[in-house]
C-alpha cells in the first residue's frame, strides 16, 4: 500500500526542476548536512532552489522516507528523480556529474 501523502511528494518533485527536502529552509538551514547540500546545489548552478522543511511537517517527513526508500534527510531530487543526500550530491559535484544533471533539468523546465 502506498503512503497517503505520496502524491504530494510526487507533485513537488515533478513541478520543481531541483527540489530539496531538508531541515530548515535553503535560506536558513537547521542542520549542517542540509546546509552543505544547499551550498553544493548553488555551486552547481541552481539559482532558485525549492525547499521543503521536514521539521515543520512530520507526516511529510515520513512519507518522504517511504517514497525514496532512503533513511536520512536532506534528500535532493533533480528532474523529478531522487539523486541522493548530502554526501552523494557533494561527491557528484566533485566528479563533475551534478552540473550536467542540473543544467538538463533546468532546461527541460524552461
Amino acid at each position, binding site marked *: 500500500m502506498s503512503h497517503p501523502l505520496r502524491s504530494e511528494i510526487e507533485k513537488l518533485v515533478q513541478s520543481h526542476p531541483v527540489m530539496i527536502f531538508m531541515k530548515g529552509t535553503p535560506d536558513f538551514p537547521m542542520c549542517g548536512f542540509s546546509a552543505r547540500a544547499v551550498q553544493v546545489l548553488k555551486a552547481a548552478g541552481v539559482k532558485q532552489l525549492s525547499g521543503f522543511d521536514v521539521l515543520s511537517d512530520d507526516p511529510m517527513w515520513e512519507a518522504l522516507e517511504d517514497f525514496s526508500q532512503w533513511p536520512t534527510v536532506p534528500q535532493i531530487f533533480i528532474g523529478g528523480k*531522487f*539523486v*541522493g543526500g548530502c554526501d*552523494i550530491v557533494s561527491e557528484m559535484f566533485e*566528479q563533475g556529474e551534478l552540473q550536467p544533471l542540473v543544467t538538463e533539468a533546468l532546461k527541460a523546465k524552461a
Partner: protein
Amino acid sequence: MTLSLEELKARLEELAPGTQANVTDLTGTRDHWQAVIVSPVFEGKMMIEQHRMVMKLMQAEIDSGVVHALTIKTYAPSKAPKN
C-alpha cells in the same frame, strides 16, 4: 560484536567479482568505518544506485549494529581515482 577491518573488507568485496574495497577505521573503535569501493557492477549506474547496492549488502550488519556507521565512496573502475 564488531568486525575487523579485514572482515569488513572481505564482506564488501562479496558485492561482485572484481570488487575492491579499501577500508579505514575512522575512530579506531571498529564501529565508524569509511570504505572506498571500486566495482565493475557500478559501471553506468547513478551514484545513488551504487550506494543502495552497498547498503543493501550490508543491511543486516547495519540493522544489528555490528556496523554502526559506514561512509562510502563508490567508483566504477573507469572513474576510480588513480593513486
